[in-house]
């Protein structure tokens, strides 16, 4: 008899604890933070090709690939870019294009971008520009995570005020989105927004 009562009590306690799990008191909030980051360098993709005389343009001449290449190197050296800085780029080229053409890229300071865009040479064409984010600020992740936690706390308080509850201690923190890495990033935009998302569970107090 005594044993059966013990079993019954244990069963009841167990069922009550299961019920308690579905009625946990908490407020889980997503905290966000963002910061605009500026690129520190750029990657300019360009092509150099030979040029054939244009029958519709009296001023046009034949330009050999070598001549176009040398002229580009000469213009680049005027703005401080050495021939060694020019790297081959494996870009798809049009199969129907019979002209001798090669694709290259250079990594350069942002100050040089305008100077490069001002270069006008027959056979030289800028094909793409990418921005490089190589300087990773070691404090940025900390800064954004603290901002995101602050954002979650503020939002939790704002919600609780409206329902006459209080935000209690933190029960759990989960980083949902950070995207920080030591790798150099490349982007089409000269400014990007770095975001940080964290989920914080607070105790909900009456």
């Amino acid at each position: 008899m005594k044993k059966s009562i013990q079993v019954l009590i244990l069963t009841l306690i167990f069922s009550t604890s299961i019920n308690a799990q579905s009625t946990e008191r908490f407020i889980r909030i997503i905290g966000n933070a963002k910061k605009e980051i500026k690129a520190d360098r750029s990657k300019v993709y360009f092509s150099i090709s030979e040029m054939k005389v244009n029958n519709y343009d009296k001023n046009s001449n034949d330009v050999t690939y070598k001549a176009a290449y040398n002229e580009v190197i000469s213009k680049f050296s005027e703005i401080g870019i050495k021939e060694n800085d020019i790297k081959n780029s494996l870009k798809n080229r049009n199969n129907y294009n019979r002209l001798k053409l090669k694709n290259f890229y250079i990594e350069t300071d942002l100050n040089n971008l305008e100077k490069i865009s001002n270069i006008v040479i027959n056979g030289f064409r800028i094909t793409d520009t990418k921005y490089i984010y190589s300087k990773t600020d070691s404090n940025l992740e900390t800064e954004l995570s603290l901002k995101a936690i602050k954002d979650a706390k503020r939002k939790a308080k704002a919600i609780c005020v409206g329902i006459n509850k209080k935000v209690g201690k933190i029960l759990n923190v989960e980083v949902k989105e950070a995207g920080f890495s030591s790798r150099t990033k490349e982007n089409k935009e000269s400014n990007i927004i770095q975001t940080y998302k964290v989920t914080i569970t607070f105790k909900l107090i009456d």
Partner: protein
Amino acid sequence: MKTFAILILLLTVTSTNAQNITLRVLGKSTYVEYAETNGIIVSFNKNELDKTVKLSDTISSIGIINKLASINESITNGKKRFRIEENSLDLFDRLLMICNDLKIKVDKVYYKLPVHRFEDEDGNAILALNNATSQAKIIANNLKYKVVDILNIDDDTTYADPFYDNIDIESERGQLLVKLLQLLGGGNSLHKVESSKPIREGGYDIWVTYKLRKL
């Protein structure tokens, strides 16, 4: 006797608890952010840079204070691109007419939306919570129950969409699919301020669990 008393107490607590049920509701709110300014991007060939001076002088003579701002993005040989922004619609219309008269190529016309502020989401979260409470009251009333308390609030509504009901999120395949969906959703326009639309629409969802008591 002591054991019997404990047993009675436990049975009473359990039976009282049985009178209560929980209800979880997804509250929703929507918001719209409106463009503050209109803008254009114009481009000039290197041989027509005199037009920039002409355009600059003309727009300042009609009262547009903003100057032509040079753009470095997507540089191309022999072309210069500029951005001009104006918040008066009348002046913006006149700006477009001036570009047409001066035969200036307008590459893009855009709306400048306000920067999304996370602080503004507090109000949307409260509206979503109120929406959940309204829904909970309607459901409780129909079930002959009364909403007595809020047990928990969950801002993480990632899997709230009915689309996820058919995905086993715990499985390897499910995780892969979720990852793919996150990647596809990476083009979030929340922080973009340049848009082809004059508004930015958004929504705020929140899960709220209520304690209901039998009437």
